[in-house]
């Protein structure tokens, strides 16, 4: 019999580490399913993966937590600046009790099976002006491009900057001409988009651990045998782990690369940034939708 086809749409480009990982996933599961990978948001426009899965025109996707939070506001907690100390902390939390609670919400409210967080780098501030940045106050008055949407713009405010939305493809020229002072992205993105050609420094703020969620339509998951589910989850864990390690290694080597390119790359006073951002988030509307006690649980996981 024909294997069920799973159309998998992602925004990552064909030469991305994650594209390689998703091809590995298709390979590993090829006995049970025919996973068709579409890269570069060619199948589904960026931002509509969630509704496409819900409507049944797409079976798999990687979805930013910000998009999930649109429909399930409880998820907005993982979009907050400085929630996670580092990548390990994020992985621990998402694999633990908090992650299970959030996954259950995604299953009940949105009909999604969350297979795991796909890490793509830690967001850092990348600036054209040469002024040294140690605290959020130093970013005051600087126009920083953040992705469109109020959750993203608030992230910019939470690190003390003046956020402005701008198309990703226009960021390079915006930096070149000075229309914007800077932008925030993980180091691999700074490299891929050549932002280092037109900027002078990278402030290692570590303000957000960037990840998308590898998701499958829940109905398909529920129709699998327990053995199939087990194989699926194991394969997903393997490729997520492989991709995460690759990204961490890449980030480490890129610090040296950017230094060699003549950029100043340094750590600011992260404690000052963390205090400033957490106060902003707790006073915002976003925090109202967080599940009581979840923040404490996440903080308690730190350092494990």
């Amino acid at each position, binding site marked *: 019999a024909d294997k069920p086809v799973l159309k998998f749409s992602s925004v990552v480009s064909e030469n991305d580490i994650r594209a390689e990982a998703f091809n590995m996933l298709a390979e590993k599961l090829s006995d049970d399913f025919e996973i068709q990978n579409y890269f570069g948001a060619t199948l589904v*426009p960026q931002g509509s993966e969630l509704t496409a899965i819900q409507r049944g*025109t797409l079976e798999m996707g990687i979805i930013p937590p910000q998009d999930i939070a649109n429909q399930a506001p409880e998820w907005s907690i993982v979009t907050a600046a400085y929630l996670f100390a580092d990548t390990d902390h994020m992985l621990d939390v998402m694999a633990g009790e908090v992650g299970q609670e959030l996954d259950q919400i995604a299953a009940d409210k949105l009909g999604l099976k969350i297979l795991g967080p796909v890490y793509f780098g830690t967001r850092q501030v990348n600036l054209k002006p040469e002024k040294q940045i140690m605290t959020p106050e130093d970013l005051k008055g600087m126009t920083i491009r953040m992705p469109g949407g109020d959750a993203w713009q608030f992230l910019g405010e939470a690190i003390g900057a003046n956020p402005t939305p701008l198309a990703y*493809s226009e960021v390079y020229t915006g930096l070149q*001409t000075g229309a914007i002072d800077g932008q925030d992205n993980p180091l691999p993105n700074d490299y891929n988009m050549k932002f280092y050609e037109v900027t002078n420094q990278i402030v290692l703020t570590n303000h957000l651990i960037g990840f998308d969620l590898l998701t499958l339509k829940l109905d398909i998951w529920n129709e699998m045998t327990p053995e199939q589910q087990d194989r699926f989850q194991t394969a997903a864990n393997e490729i997520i782990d492989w991709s995460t390690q690759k990204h961490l290694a890449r980030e480490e080597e890129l610090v040296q690369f950017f230094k060699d390119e003549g950029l100043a790359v340094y750590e600011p006073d992260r404690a000052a940034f963390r205090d400033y951002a957490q106060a902003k988030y707790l006073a915002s509307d976003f925090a109202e939708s967080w599940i009581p006690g979840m923040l404490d649980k996440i903080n308690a996981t730190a350092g494990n």
Partner: protein
Amino acid sequence: MSPEFSLAVAIIVGAAIIGLPIGHAMIVASLTYLFVSGMDMGIAAEQMLRGLYGSYVLLAIPLFIFAADLMNIGSLSDRLLGFCRALVGRFRGGLGHVNVFSSLIFSGMSGSAIADAVGMGRIIINLMLRDGKYPAAYAGAITAASAIIGPIIPPSIPMVLYALVSDTSIGFLFLAGVVPGLILGLLLMLMNAFLARRYDFPTEDPVPLNALPKITLRAVPALLMPVILLVGIYGGVTTPTEAAALAALYAFVVSAVFYRSITLRDTWRTIRSSARSTASVGILIAGALVFNYVITVEQVPAAIRGALAGYDLSAWQFLLMVNAVLLVLGCLIEANAILLVITPILIPTALALGVDPVHFGVIVVVNTMIGLTTPPYGLLLFVVSSITKSPVAQTIRYLMPFLGIMIVGLGIITFVPGLVLWLPRLYGYGN
């Protein structure tokens, strides 16, 4: 190719032949494809609406249309016309030269060929048609041909897309586009001079030299427009997309406040007509977004990858083949789709054969831009035909010689890499 896909292609061709507007034809064909494949027809709505909603750079199109319309109803374009006549009108086909030359200037501020055609192109077309001295379709053809220079000379949206998929420096890519852009401009002017002689286009009455200072002074507000936009973009005031709004504001302020040459009533009429033009152009983009879904689901790119793998090519054979394939695809597929979907398939082979990635990027971008003017699916072709209100077939007839000379230009760009890479190397590329 599945029977469903063949049916969709047949419907586009058939519907277009019997005169269904192109935008509707693409939507109708895509909907039919979804229907006969047993898929959710709501996908068409999703692709169109989410695609239009999310493509921020397209928002420049309505405002460049609006800016050009304001220039036309005010006295700005008259002043520009007077200046151009005085300067190059004495040559045969003078306004054709002006058309190409203005595209070269404006390519420095616009990263999109469509924006050039609907913005600057629209203004020059009106100048060329005002006295009935040029066939409307000729004005449209030379506008379409010169508009493709816009994204070859920096800034350039297509080059940004190529850099994204190819891991190449945007800065060096931008530099690499300068010489090819100038070469194409020169070739188009040569062709215009040749055709002007052949069709016996008019020369304008020579303007006495002592009148030149006054005419120049009168044209200063219009001539300042590109300067203001360049300062706006390179001075960091606006993004390339926002520059369109600045252009419209400038045209409005100069015409309405400074010269008092337009009234509120004129302005409202202009806004209405700009909105109508926006809709005519926009529905083509909407249709293309929907049809691209069909192409993606049909895995057309994978089929091309498979076809290419079967040959054992040398570098120059490969480049020749790439040019042929992209020119053919440019007749059928939208430019962004070629850049984002087809190019990644070709890059590994190019690198393996020792083709320089920056050079390859320029070849690909020039190809896709030429593709904007080739029938049956050539967005620029439709856009200029709608501006000149002349039949597409007429435009194609006048476009053919320009297409020919651009393909010659493409050949030079492809097989003389030194020309393309000269400027980037001057600034340290590959050192």
